[in-house]
């Protein structure tokens, strides 16, 4: 068996249902793989883990992956199960914000730690300064929950469709008392959860083969998860060492994630890729047009 370590971008949750299901259902074993799944967290940068040799494959957002590549960690995208972004910005209607023109003068909550690029790309496109000036917006480093909205510390906050938005719904917010800016619908989406490996490992055919089998099994996992959402949620809850995952919440998450993932196609969509690259270049997040930041050898081999 080939041993592979997968570093997730976040804590164990249904956002990663495909991998967790593939592991639990033995799909990796079938491909003769011994996969270890490491949960992430707010202080774990998967790019750093893989650079230090702590993982073979990581799940991360493309913006962060390319930024890392730009600073000298040669990450290569080998597959892109997430086709759409789950990122949204929501503003309670009492803030009076109904369109991006209303933003100036308000405080917006943004996740940092590598999750801030889509927001800044969007603001860059709108031409709104983010320096806290009167014509611009004040940016707040948002905690990874919806408290800043409930507490009224921010006028708008970032949410993922599959996670915090559900919390907001639970808390009694909904489309009727929220203004929702969906990055995908606005055409501002940057690619999210993709699979990345270190460039030099691709020189090794055995590795490439292992990656291919890994992606194949993972996509099978995604397929299974979307077909059996109840069981997938249970698997996620079971896989969570911390005991924090709640079935209902994970069940909701599977449902929402299924809208973003295409289990039949692991390949990178070049149109979104180019848009993502362009947005990053425009903002100066990366300095140079990336070369070799993705490969199709794995998806071609499926």
């Amino acid at each position, binding site marked *: 068996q080939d041993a592979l370590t997968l570093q997730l971008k976040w804590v164990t949750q249904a956002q990663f249902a495909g991998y967790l299901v593939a592991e639990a259902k033995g799909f990796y074993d079938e491909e003769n793989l011994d996969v270890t799944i490491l949960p992430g967290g*707010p*202080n774990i*940068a998967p*790019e*750093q883990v893989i*650079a*230090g040799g702590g993982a073979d494959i990581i799940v991360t957002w493309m913006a*962060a992956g390319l*930024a*890392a590549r730009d*600073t*000298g*960690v040669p990450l290569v995208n080998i597959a892109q199960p997430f086709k759409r972004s789950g990122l949204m910005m929501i503003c309670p209607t009492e803030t009076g914000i109904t369109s991006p023109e209303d933003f100036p003068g308000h405080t917006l909550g943004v996740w*940092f*730690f*590598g*999750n*801030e690029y889509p927001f800044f790309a969007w603001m860059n496109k709108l031409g709104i300064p*983010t320096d*806290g000036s009167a014509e611009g917006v*004040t*940016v*707040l*480093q*948002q*905690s990874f929950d919806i*408290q*800043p909205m409930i*507490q009224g*510390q921010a006028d708008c906050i970032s949410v993922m469709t599959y996670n915090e938005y559900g919390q907001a719904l639970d808390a009694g917010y909904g489309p009727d008392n929220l203004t929702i800016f969906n990055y995908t619908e606005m055409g501002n989406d940057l690619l999210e959860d993709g699979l990345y490996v270190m460039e030099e490992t691709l020189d090794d055919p055995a590795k490439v083969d292992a990656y291919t089998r890994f992606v194949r099994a993972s996509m099978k996992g995604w397929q299974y998860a979307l077909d059996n959402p109840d069981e997938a949620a249970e698997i996620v809850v079971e896989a969570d060492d911390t005991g924090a995952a709640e079935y209902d919440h994970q069940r909701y998450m599977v449902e929402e994630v299924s809208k973003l993932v295409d289990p039949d196609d692991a390949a990178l969509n070049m149109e979104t890729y180019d848009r993502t690259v362009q947005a990053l270049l425009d903002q100066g997040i990366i300095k140079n047009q990336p070369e070799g930041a993705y490969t199709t050898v794995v998806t071609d081999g499926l």
Partner: protein
Amino acid sequence: MIGSLSPLQRFLALLAAGASLVGLLLSLAVGNTPAPLLLFFALGTLSLLRVRVAFNLSLDGILAAAGAAALILSLPAGAAMPAHFWLALLSAWAFAWLFVERLSAAIRAGALPHSGTGLVIPLVFGLTLLVVWEVVTRGANVPPVLLPAPSAIAARLAAETGILWADFVQTFVKSVIPGYIIGCLAGLLVAIAVDRSPFLKAGVMPIGNFMSALPIIGIAPIMVMWFGFDWQSKAAVVVAMTFFPMLVNTVAGLNAASVIERDLMRTYAASYTQTLFKLRLPAAAPFIFNALKINSTLALIGAIVAEFFGTPVVGMGFRISTGVGRLAIDLVWAEIAVAAVAGSAFYGVIALIERGVTFWHPSVRGGRA
């Protein structure tokens, strides 16, 4: 002569020269060793002469510096160092240690002035650490995203002074200082109140111990919830963090006055406040300063950690967390360096005040053991 050295110094001298000797031999065997390094190996080997003639201690300093310079000049770009280069590191480090040993021995013996030269020692030690760090990270090709070399950090530090200064003001000036003052003062006052009333003492101390351990990480999100995302919540975390060490130490310190010293106050029928100010607080001063020093570092950690839970987009903790996320690890370390300097200076100021206030305590009066 080597006989005038202490056993430790003798060992270091032999280690330094020996490592150089082996390095020299290996270089000659392998060939292609850069000239500066070769020169250092030769000089280091020559230091074996000290078995015959006495070496001035500054010679050891010069040798250490030469070794450091030679190593850094000879570091190969982008590849791991050849094995025998590590001997130069060992040798240079042994020279530096020897230098520090002999310097402090000289200061102690009164051969060198105390002030001024006293500062050289920690500096030399720190520089040694930096050189070792530089050589190890570059020589062993450690990925910069795991641990950048000090030179890269210094470059970032120089390039980003504006950002670093803004972060410093946000975190240190706005959060740490007020939080520290309030927390320490509160700890002191509660300790006094607790000490005054046995009832309070019995009631508060167990609960105080309990509260003490509220891990800051837990209160940080709560404080952000309560006090908003700006510096106020960070200051609140600092208050919570500094309170307990002060409480515990002050309560212990207030018991430090000896029985006969207290009896004296009783014979004067001194009031509670008089006893407090003229006996118990002075006697407690060493303990109180202990807490002030521990807190000076805790406060900074607390404020930085609290910034991980929501903050305006400025602050040392903010920069560190986003820096890690962006793999700007050199910026992270630059920020850490600022934190270390600020924290050490803070500590130093308190230690200086302590020397002034508790000059009478044997641990200060007696000087070093």
